[in-house]
């Protein structure tokens, strides 16, 4: 285990050498030297801005971190991010090359003044850090692959003169480590770039750390999505749950079924072409982010009916169709022919191993009104239990998707309504009422779960609501150790009823950062005051 050493306080502490600060042990008032002399003011109260960023304004907080007050200087004209000796990745690793340039720009800006400098080192007398060497240790670094649930995101960072070393199993860990390193580099009052000698050992607590974006209630232009992927990378999120279509609009331009978006999108300008989709997937990949698309059925499909005749169930009033439609019609063979072909496309367009199939909030009224559906229920022996019809549909979809070798994520209703699920199904728990109990049920039945219920960020309210998101402890549910292992992570959801490109970024960030730390950092990192200090700096850095 890690040694714990009490931290010397005040000035005396600063004069000593290294401090050992296992984040596991943290009583965070110790981490910043002497404890505050007076009660720390409520953030809402006035406090004079205290100057540049604290050296250790890391977000999310690494699992294990030790820093020394000894600082190293970086000269932007000379400093380089390079592949280290023995790395299984080299200059042909496009993903890392791209990351090197990106992180250089984050740290030093894009100023043209950073020409290659050979002049005498000016300013301070600190030793110079000339390089960060990145060493990938696994034989297959993953440069050309897509991240997946089991990818390694662990990294070890040693910052000491003359070169810093970032070691990771795979490129994904290197991306996480580069983000952390960039957060360590800071400027002093004179504009010199400095970094404290440090050693960091880090890995995520949960493997699935996602953001849900809804591009159906309001179309989100590509730029908006890409900006969001950048913000996700700053916070070590690794899944974009793309809730791409829904009742209101169908912006996904399908290759096999172009009418879906022709008739179902808000306009021809409000679509995602195959090129757009590839762009998002690649932009995400370069940041170690998986893209899991959600094509939610059988409910939430009004927009599908515009471009695909006879897909949705016609609703009846007595003997006659009313002209309106309900969920997908589960009794027709044509439905499943369509779905087979549709999912063939989706499975090849989206490289992730998982597809989200939805399955939430299916309203049975329309099915109940339709005489053919009622007849089908009778024939199948479902009685009047429409949950059985829903499960019948879902199971057929699950089979279709499995035949394309994809895994699937479903909303909790699919589990609650007792559909037959494959053992590797992931169930997403979203209903706010007693979600802990639902987590127990889902994991108790042996299924993997992801938690979204307490993190519906579209539910805005006045004040510092990030605190309530931060204070959620995902494993606070009754269950065995084995069960708890089945909770693989969670997602912050930004449903789009009241969100479009004009307000997405300020609404989602930095509130989602609170969720990001909860899912990455250790369980004991819970001090709100410390989080507040780091988060305020992190937010300014993200801007």
């Amino acid at each position, binding site marked *: 285990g890690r040694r714990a050493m009490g931290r010397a306080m005040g000035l005396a502490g600063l004069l000593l050498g290294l401090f050992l600060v296992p984040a596991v042990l943290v009583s965070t008032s110790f981490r910043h030297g002497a404890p505050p002399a007076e009660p720390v003011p409520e953030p*809402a109260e*006035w406090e004079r*801005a205290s100057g540049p960023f604290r050296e250790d304004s890391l977000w999310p907080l690494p699992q294990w971190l030790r820093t020394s007050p000894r600082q190293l200087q970086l000269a932007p004209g000379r400093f380089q991010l390079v592949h280290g000796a023995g790395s299984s990745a080299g200059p042909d690793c496009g993903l890392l090359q791209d990351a090197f340039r990106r992180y250089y720009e984050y740290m030093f800006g894009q100023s043209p003044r950073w020409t290659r400098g050979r002049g005498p080192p000016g300013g301070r007398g600190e030793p110079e850090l000339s390089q960060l060497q990145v060493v990938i240790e696994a034989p297959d670094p993953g440069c050309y692959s897509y991240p997946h649930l089991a990818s390694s995101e662990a990294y070890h960072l040693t910052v000491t003169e003359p070169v810093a070393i970032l070691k990771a199993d795979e490129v994904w860990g290197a991306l996480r480590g580069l983000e952390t390193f960039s957060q360590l580099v800071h400027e002093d009052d004179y504009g010199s770039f400095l970094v404290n000698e440090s050693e960091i050992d880090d890995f995520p607590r949960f493997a699935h750390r996602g953001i849900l974006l809804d591009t159906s209630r309001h179309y989100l232009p590509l730029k908006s999505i890409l900006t969001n992927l950048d913000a996700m990378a700053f916070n070590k999120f690794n899944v974009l749950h793309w809730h791409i279509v829904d009742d209101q609009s169908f912006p996904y331009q399908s290759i096999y079924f172009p009418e879906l978006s022709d008739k179902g999108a808000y306009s021809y300008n409000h679509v995602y072409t195959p090129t757009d989709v590839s762009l998002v997937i690649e932009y995400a990949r370069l940041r170690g982010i998986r893209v899991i698309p959600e094509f939610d059925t059988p409910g939430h499909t009004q927009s599908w009916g515009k471009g695909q005749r006879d897909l949705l169930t016609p609703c009846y009033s007595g003997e006659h169709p009313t002209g309106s439609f309900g969920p997908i019609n589960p009794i027709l063979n044509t439905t499943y022919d369509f779905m087979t072909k549709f999912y063939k496309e989706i499975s090849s367009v989206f490289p992730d191993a998982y597809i989200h199939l939805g399955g939430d909030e299916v309203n049975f009224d329309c099915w109940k009104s339709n005489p053919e559906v009622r007849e089908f229920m009778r024939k199948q022996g479902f009685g009047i239990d429409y949950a059985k019809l829903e499960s019948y549909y879902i199971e057929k979809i699950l089979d279709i998707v499995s035949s394309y070798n994809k895994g699937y994520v479903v909303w909790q209703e699919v589990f609650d309504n007792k559909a037959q699920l494959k053992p590797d199904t992931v169930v997403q728990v979203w209903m706010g009422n007693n979600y802990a109990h639902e987590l127990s049920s889902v994991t108790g039945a042996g299924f993997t779960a992801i938690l979204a219920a307490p993190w519906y960020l*579209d*539910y*805005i*309210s*006045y*004040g*510092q609501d990030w605190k309530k998101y931060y204070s959620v402890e995902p494993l606070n549910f009754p269950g065995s150790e084995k069960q708890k292992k089945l909770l693989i992570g969670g997602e912050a959801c930004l449903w789009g009823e*009241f969100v479009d490109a*004009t*307000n997405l*970024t*300020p*609404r989602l960030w930095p509130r989602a950062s609170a969720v990001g730390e909860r899912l990455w950092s250790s369980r004991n990192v819970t001090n709100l005051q410390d989080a507040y200090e780091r988060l305020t700096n992190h937010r300014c850095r993200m*801007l």
Partner: protein
Amino acid sequence: AENEPPWGTPCTQLLVFVAMPGCDGFPSLDSKENYKLSVSEGSLLLSADAIWGALRGLETFSQLVGRDENGTYYINKTEIVDFPRFPHRGLLLDTSRHYLPLRAILETLDVMAYNKFNVFHWHIVDDPSFPYESFTFPELSKQGAFNPMTHVYTASDVQTVIEYARLRGIRVIAEFDTPGHTLSWGPGAPGLLTPCYLGKEPSGTYGPINPILNSTYKFVTNLFQEVSTVFPDFFLHLGGDEVDFTCWKSNPKIRAFMKEMGFGEDYKKLESFYIQRLLDIISSLGKGYIVWQEVFDNGAEVRPDTIVHVWKENPTPYMEEMANVTKAGYRALLSAPWYLNRISYGQDWMAAYKVDPLKFKGVPEQKDRVIGGEACMWGEYVDVTNLTPRLW
């Protein structure tokens, strides 16, 4: 013929007719904003008593112009007679809790014009920061701004805002809130704020403006002399809200003063003592004033033409407060139900829309004293990154 556009004769000119001269003046509470718009075949006429009405009419005209699916611009035959129900329709921005760069203020003024707002209530300084660059007291922003080089409003910035607003028929009413909400004034004006005491010794912290020193009133006179010349509107907002008495009570010199004046333990009397002297100073500078409701609630003696700004929802429900204020003969502004910084999920615009400022028991003369209201966007959680989508 088939290719003839469905629209009538093309319109080429909107004629704007303004009855009263006055292009170079500033809008005021009494400005006339009424206009008539007449759109018919071959004639587009906008007529108004004053230029301010012409601005309102132009906005309306621009909203009437449509574009069909071929891209053709058109306008329907229309007759409009329009005037505002309330003459004071304001928006409050808070540039102390977070600095707002000039462009954010100017953008807000544009959107205000789209919505026919006509008062920009600039809550320019407060506890957290003092961004107003004063030429009489330059130390105030040097010591009190978040960053005295970057997070300040220079004299030129202020003039830019005032003129940009004027061109849109918007009055700029500056608020220098005292005696509370003044922590940021302290560093640049030593001796201005009340030193708080812990027992017999000063604690090192400060409270509201010190009402017992002559130097205070000298300072206030000089500062407001400057503010009166910088801001051309007749009205200044003097604040007067949320004065915390704890610090005053802790200070032995203040306690002695209270005794001397026969105020007993009623610190509201001390607050009113300060406010009354402040109001006299402002009057002598030839300005009128708006104050937050506490000034009225705490019984200060104010001029009959004082405007009372109602913002609290308790202990007195705001409609009751509106009745009380107007009954006492003062004009009233309503903000209480319109604190837009208090966000919540869903279509909260409806709650704001449903408010009827005149829904209180009172005689017609009272109702006439309600001159309007203001939507407030306090800055605790607002800066340039989220101001516009939060406000509009």
